[in-house]
């Protein structure tokens, strides 16, 4: 539950609308999603159809209406 005094951002993560606290980094978002503090291996992130390299996850903050896709290898192909 995010306290009322913190600004919240509306973003979409893997197609689902989410509310996140302003200032949330990609790194934090990925570690929440994957359940792994370091984000886990073999994960790639795109924000608004642009790849965000892992080296920039900790320094990239989400913005209002960002569309985030967090992908990893799966059976297929």
């Amino acid at each position: 539950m995010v306290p009322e005094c913190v600004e919240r951002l509306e973003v979409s993560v893997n197609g689902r609308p989410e509310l996140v606290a302003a200032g949330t980094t990609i790194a934090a978002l990925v570690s929440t999603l994957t359940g792994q503090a370091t984000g886990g291996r073999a994960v790639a992130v795109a924000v608004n159809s642009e790849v965000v390299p892992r080296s920039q996850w900790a320094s990239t903050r989400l913005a209002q209406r960002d569309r985030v896709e967090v992908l990893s290898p799966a059976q297929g192909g």
Partner: protein
Amino acid sequence: MGTGGATSMAALGQALKASGTAMATVAMRRVDPATRGSLLDVLDQLGIRALPNTAGCFTARDAVLTARLGREALATDWVKLEVIGDDRSLLPDPVELLEAAEELVDDGFVVLAYTSDDPVVARRLEQLGCAAVMPLGSPIGSGLGIRNPHNIALIVQAASVPVVLDAGIGTASDATMAMELGCDAVLVASAVTRSPDPPAMALAMARGVEAGRLAHLAGRIPRRFHAEASSPWAGLAQLTPDA
């Protein structure tokens, strides 16, 4: 081998092991915490290299982005490029494919391009700098084998890069035919993963590929309209007296 279509991760692992393959394609999909990590663990344990693909993309734009995400995730410049033009036949869209191939080659990717059996498109892909061309035998998952062996032979004859028969293989003899036509390798998924006995079919594929490659290197006899006896006519006994 492709990794799609298996009933379970364990079944996939057994099939991959039986196939003896050194490389397997993987799709890039939204993270699912329930199954995360296990596919790569299986590949790592078997010493199989993961090749990301752009399965599910219908436009060059999506395929290029997916390829870049695959490069990020797996730290490899290699990508199997797949750009589909029709969601029922899953046949490639040559226009989007050529555009994506050009952009990815420029961006430093090693592009293995899944394509139709059209020799002209295959030549264009090679000219753009693709590292391999991968013509289909027939639509993905159809098991219809090689529908146009003549075109595959034309592609093989003209190519200076490896040719991998990719899509439509239904059973081991299809893989053998591909190798006899001069292909350098085959890519198989459904024929193995959806077989009633995937590890057994994977082994059959391995043997089929080997047989086809040996036959190709040995050289086949020509096809003759009439017979050519393999036993000599000379030295035949006369067993029935002349009338």
